[in-house]
């Protein structure tokens, strides 16, 4: 017993330094971090890339756009990630941080669009919403109905109170929590878009951006908006169980569950593949990834991965990413980014912000 114990201890202690020495060796696979919205697309590309080339399959972590950019900006070298996915554009502050930590050359590649849908169960009638309805139904404070430029706490309990043409069901929307990029995009595109339909709010945006944001970007907390976690599958299941509620999630989940849920019309436009690709559907956002140019020479396979991602069979009109729900960019834009990926330029400069 005693001997065994000491042996175990000795083995455990000996193993540590042996492994530490390994860590300095070169990494022979790409590491990617970032957005959980881009994750389902990037992983498909990575898997194809790993299976069809001599390179190893890239490792992809879903850290969220903000978390990914933070890891990405930490520095240059095999310790740090090579690529970060983002469901929004890099911010100036994040770019500055990259430069401060030695990440001088960053290449931006846009991969396509993602639509954010407001859906309900197929057993219920389809909603026809406007962005103004969404704002009035979900904002913490709404413009005073008497028309004066003041706000009141949101009094609406049913959709009919918001808009006479909507059903008299209770307002109950299941959506992602504030940490989610989907929520950021929803707030920015749908709610702020709706808020701007009030002229005095539109004027306020020019005068006092913070005050506008406080009104247009704050979601009510009285139970009408239910934070349902980051798991979009869960929202789809909850919608089925409760046909009276609406849910907010990415287009790919609507696409995969088209037999269970239906997307509401927003401003008269149905969230279909074509409508999002055309830019008609108002609640959609571009998706990106960012590459460290300095790593292309160190880590094997980065160029190949970029080529695979920007190939027509991947992010093209009928590529395998569109099967997964990614909305492709127009032809000219695709060609532009294919060229960016091939030539690794232009690099981002402060002038881009």
């Amino acid at each position, binding site marked *: 017993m005693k001997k065994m*114990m000491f042996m175990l201890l000795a083995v455990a202690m000996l193993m540590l330094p042996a*492994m530490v020495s390994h860590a300095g060796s070169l990494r022979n696979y790409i590491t990617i971090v970032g957005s959980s919205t881009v994750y389902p697309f990037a*992983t498909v590309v990575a898997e194809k890339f790993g299976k069809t080339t001599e390179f190893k399959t890239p490792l992809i*972590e879903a850290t969220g756009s903000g978390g990914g950019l933070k890891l990405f900006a930490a520095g240059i070298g095999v310790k740090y990630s090579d690529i970060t996915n983002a469901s929004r554009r890099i911010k100036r502050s994040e770019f500055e941080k990259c430069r401060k930590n030695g990440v001088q050359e960053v290449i931006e590649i846009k991969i396509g669009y993602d639509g954010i849908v407001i859906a309900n169960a197929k057993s219920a009638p389809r909603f026809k919403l406007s962005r103004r309805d969404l704002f009035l139904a979900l904002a913490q404070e709404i413009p005073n109905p008497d028309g004066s430029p003041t706000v009141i706490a949101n009094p609406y309990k049913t959709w009919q109170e918001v808009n006479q043409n909507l059903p008299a069901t209770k307002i109950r929307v299941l959506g992602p929590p504030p940490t989610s990029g989907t929520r950021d995009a929803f707030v920015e595109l749908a709610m702020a878009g709706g808020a701007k339909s009030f002229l005095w709010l539109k004027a306020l945006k020019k005068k006092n951006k913070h005050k506008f944001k406080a009104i247009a970007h704050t979601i009510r907390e009285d139970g009408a908006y239910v934070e349902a976690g980051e798991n979009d*599958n869960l929202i789809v299941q909850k919608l089925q169980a409760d046909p009276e509620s609406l849910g907010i999630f990415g287009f790919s*989940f609507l696409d995969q569950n*088209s037999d269970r849920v239906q997307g509401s019309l927003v401003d008269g436009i149905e969230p279909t593949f074509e409508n999002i690709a055309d830019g008609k559907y108002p609640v959609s956002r571009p998706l990106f990834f960012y590459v460290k140019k300095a790593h292309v020479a160190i880590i094997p396979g980065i160029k190949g991965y970029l080529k695979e991602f920007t190939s027509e069979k991947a992010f093209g009109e009928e590529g395998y990413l569109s099967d997964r*729900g990614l909305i492709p960019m127009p032809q000219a834009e695709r060609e532009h980014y294919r060229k960016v990926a091939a030539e690794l330029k232009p690099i981002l400069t402060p002038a881009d912000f």
Partner: protein
Amino acid sequence: MNENSIDNLCSVTDTVRNGLARRYRAEKRFRWFGVCAIFLSLLFLVILFGDILSKGLPAFSQTRIKLSIFFDPDLLPADNLESADYNALVKSSCRKLFPEVKGRRSKRALYKLVSEGAAYELRKKVLQNHNLIGTTRDFWLIADDELDMLMKGKILRDSTGRYNQQQLGWIEKLEHDGRLRRQFNFTFFSSGDSRDPELAGILGALSGTILTLALTLLLSFPIGIGAAIYLEEFLKKGRFSDFLEVNINNLAAVPSIIFGLLGLGVFINFFGLPRSAPLVGGLVLALMTLPTIIISSRAAIKAVPPSIREAALGLGASPVQVVFHHVLPLAMPGMLTGTIIGMARALGETAPLLMVGMVAFIVDIPKSFNAAATVLPVQIYLWADSPERAFSERTSAAIIVLLIFLILMNASAVFLRRKFEKRW
């Protein structure tokens, strides 16, 4: 005075007698509550298992399509068998089956019935056996995940689903010709993660779990028991030991994510260990399990009767001999229980692993402590979050595998405990 006391006695017996029925009732009620509690917890357990099993068991079988593949020598040049276009073989076989299909769109829809994994299967077969080239053979190839869902009744057979009328027609014909069947899903146990549900497997996460937990056990078990023995048997009780005790108890209650942050700061950023590796995961989980093991081991040592120690000392054993020959074997069952509780907790953790990069998409199966790896609960989380419908049954299947793993761990603990108990 005398009468008074008799009266008193009577009144006491009366009170007792009067209260007796009430006390019996209370007794009965309490037992009934106990039965209810057990029944309720069993009910919840049955509901949980029933739900997981009913959702997860279908994932252990998989739909396959019988296709007669012509290994066209023109498509398989002898010098380039590695990267030949095996997909083309599948496609031409599909076309032969439905010669009436014309037009790019319809053809694409037809090819979608077969998984992309079929091409990899054919590639493997050809590389193993070059004689196949030039022949025509029948193979049961993996079907697409949505066809699988349709066959399992998870997607309705009408045009509201993911298939259009034309595709449903093909599927009906395939079924009629006996070209569709469900068979055991070997892929699930033999491959790593994939974004195609029909190709996704649990092996990568399983071996990641084994590597991580092995390291956790290797580190936390000896260190934890060593610490417990020293604290309990050798350290003088005083302010310092109180201080240690408070801190260990505190650590046992610290949320696991904090250990993850510590791992990120110390092991990855300071020592420069690789991200996403079982090495760091194991270290973090070992730190997390240590307090649990120390506390339960100390309790087990405390429970060894002092007479054993005194007898051994009295017969001339040294303090170290007393501990290792007498106290430790007696305390071992309790220590093992504590270790298993700690390991079971480590097995279910995702939060600390998030910080050290083990929540990731990893296709290759990890073979060393340095390789990128993920663990079972992380795999479950990642699959639960995937949009493809077929992943939901794989999520439940992975939960079943996790539960089996847990049962094996606990059973081995019970077995070891029995074994050690026999000595005394």
